[in-house]
């Protein structure tokens, strides 16, 4: 059992749930105190000790039955047991017609024998189950194993058998009953295959070596990344966000405002005989305010997902963050980020604002902004624009950008393009550049990390 739990934990880790050693120890202690007899209690003891995140829960619910659910499989029924000798004779006669190669499985179904471990192993080798390490392959693998067992042909053979039996004069009701039982056995067998596939894949997941080569990933430009790389990068951005959390707390400027702190003053001046020589003032943390406008048009699509994850992280960290996304007009996306996991939130935004065809219009979006949200920008606000400034030859509305930028404390532009490309083609970057305090280039994760660091400095 212990080994099973260890494997389960390894599979959870492989599926992306972060579980520390201390937590797995807790899980064992919890299981010890509640026992394994009651399946529900057992599930809850693992759940509460291992999964500390609402997002980890679906993974847990998916893997748990794979590892600890085998007892619930319905037993297969033995059909040939309660046959009269005449019926048995008829069936034997009917079975003789069945192809030799299918005979084995048909017998199994008739006798209600599940597949043995050996047979399962052989099937696994045949369909390449041992190489699969993603649960999404589960159903596919099950289908492949069914095919390898000639499930379909067996079904046809069984249908034929029923016909033969009818010809031989067996009771119709009896045949139907038998067919029902055979069907139940087939389902049970399929369940067994599915269970086995799930278990094997989950075990493979646990044994998969951890990903390497992140450094390499850090320096690759965003537009040359595969889906799998993206997946890993996304995780990396989340880690970056976690690191931000501690850094932002340190970096936030501590300014003193005029209010006297009576307690601190008394304490500091005890050494002067309570004559207030050193005055102490209340510490006042100046909280940054952010307005972020993010381009998610086609030209930015390859990195917009990461940028949105970053926005999400910023919003999570700095409570006064107003996030906007635009293609041809502006959309307020802060509400989409609330109470959702990063992946969900980003997916929702991208889903809500699908790309069109060459329709980026920052000018119009800036117009929307100054009409509806200009009050969000004041002297404490840092304005961040994420985008490549490629405007499809629309009016860039630099005048509006200037107004907004002047209202803000700082205006920062985050672009994935190198300076060499600014102003080329439909890029209005050079026009906007005049009104930015800082322009940061972020075309790979290393640059993004430095850029974010700089963002939080000010």
């Amino acid at each position: 059992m212990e080994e099973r739990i260890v494997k389960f934990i390894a599979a959870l880790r492989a599926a992306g749930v972060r579980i520390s050693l201390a937590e797995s120890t807790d899980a064992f202690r919890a299981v010890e105190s509640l026992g394994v007899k009651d399946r529900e209690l057992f599930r809850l003891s693992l759940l509460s000790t291992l999964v500390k995140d609402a997002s980890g829960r679906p993974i847990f619910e998916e893997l748990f039955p794979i590892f600890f659910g085998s007892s619930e499989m319905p037993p297969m029924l033995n059909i040939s047991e309660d046959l009269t000798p005449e019926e048995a004779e008829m069936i034997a006669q009917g079975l003789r017609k069945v192809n030799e190669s299918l005979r084995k499985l048909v017998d199994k179904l008739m006798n209600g024998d599940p597949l043995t471990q050996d047979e399962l192993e052989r099937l696994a080798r045949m369909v390449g189950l041992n190489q699969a390490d993603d649960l999404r392959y589960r159903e596919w693998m099950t289908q492949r194993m069914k095919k390898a067992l000639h499930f379909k042909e067996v079904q046809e053979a069984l249908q034929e058998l029923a016909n033969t039996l009818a010809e031989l004069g067996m009771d119709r009701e009896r045949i139907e009953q038998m067919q029902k039982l055979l069907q139940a056995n087939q389902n049970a067998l399929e369940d067994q295959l599915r269970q086995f596939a799930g278990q094997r894949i989950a075990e493979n997941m646990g044994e998969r070596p951890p990903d390497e080569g992140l450094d390499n990933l850090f320096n690759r430009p965003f537009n040359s990344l595969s889906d799998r790389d993206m997946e890993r990068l996304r995780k990396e951005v989340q880690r970056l966000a976690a690191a931000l959390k501690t850094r932002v707390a340190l970096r936030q400027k501590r300014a003193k405002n005029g209010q006297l702190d009576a307690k601190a003053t008394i304490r500091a001046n005890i050494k002067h005989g309570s004559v207030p020589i050193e005055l102490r003032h209340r510490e006042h943390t100046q909280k940054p305010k952010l307005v972020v406008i993010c381009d998610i048009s086609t030209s930015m699509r390859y990195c917009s997902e990461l940028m949105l994850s970053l926005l999400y992280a910023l919003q999570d960290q700095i409570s006064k963050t107003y996030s906007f996304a635009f293609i041809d007009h502006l959309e307020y996306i802060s509400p989409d980020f609330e109470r959702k996991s990063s992946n969900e939130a980003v997916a929702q935004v991208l889903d809500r604002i699908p790309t069109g065809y060459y329709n980026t219009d920052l000018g119009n979006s800036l117009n929307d902004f100054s009409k509806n949200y200009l009050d969000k920008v004041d002297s404490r606000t840092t304005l961040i624009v994420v985008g490549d400034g490629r405007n499809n030859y629309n009016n860039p509305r630099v005048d509006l950008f200037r107004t907004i930028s002047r209202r803000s404390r700082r205006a920062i532009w985050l672009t994935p393009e190198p300076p060499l490309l600014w102003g080329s083609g439909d890029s209005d970057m050079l026009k906007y550049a005049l009104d930015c305090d800082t322009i940061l280039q972020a075309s790979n994760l290393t640059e993004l990390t430095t850029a974010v660091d700089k963002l939080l400095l000010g």
Partner: protein
Amino acid sequence: MTTTQRFDSPRELKVALGQQQYIASDEIATIMYLSQELGKPLLTEGPAGVGKTELAKAIAGATKRELIRLQCYEGLDETKALYEWEYAKQLLYTQLLRDKLQETLAGTDNLGAAADRLAQEEDVFFSMRFLLQRPLLKAILSEQPTVLLIDEIDRADAEFEAFLLEVLSDFQVSVPELGTLAAIHRPLVILTSNNTRELSEALKRRCLYLFIDYPSIEQEMAVVRLKVPELSAKMARQAVELVQSLRSMDLRKSPSISETLDWAKALVALNATVLDSATLETTLSVLLKHESDLQRARRWLQRPASGPNLSDGSDTQTPRWRN
């Protein structure tokens, strides 16, 4: 001395919580039981108003322990959460005891001896007498076992979270002047979070995790029947069904259980016997606290012959993006 209670099984705990008018699911009871068995803090997360704080109160009642509550907010620091020296009192005492001090120091021949003698007495001023105990220290030093509720931890700063780590893992605090103070009894600790920000991995690692979601119709019915018995079963059912379907709508703030209860009480106070549109019109503001939500709900309610499924309304759809 009152005896505090321990529970031998999750079932027993569930019954005890039930006696405190708290209807716990098996999940809540089991994880709460584990928290008691393993001596680990319990971190509960979930939408606002699903009874996270109520759980702490109920468990305090069920175990007959004192409930010590620490409400978190932005800018909460150690002096508010842990302890503080009472400077004013210290100063006052020094002033009043001046004569006595002179008396004590009277017999000494030189400064050195006087300082030594004073040093012997110094502890008087840095003793428990002058220590103002804040909730965390109170929970640790309490003679009786307690329940410590750290409410809305997600509102506190990240630094405070880090500071909590020592307290939560070892149940001890170091006060420089007094040394390390260890807990006499391990308090049952419950942390709640509304999930407005991600908590640190380190904190999560030290806790058991319990996610409390909105209850099912049956659970909510049971809660309403228990807390507002005056409302007829039929009305309660209708009310709960309406609330449940409101939750499936895309609202800025979904109604919570506490709001359902408020609403139920309002219906009782108004002697409502049927949920007609007039009653709804007047009482809906108890459930929904945003003008836009109210309008959306009204529009939906006024739609003729709407089916039981409220979420299919086209008004919940965001407008198509124009390309």
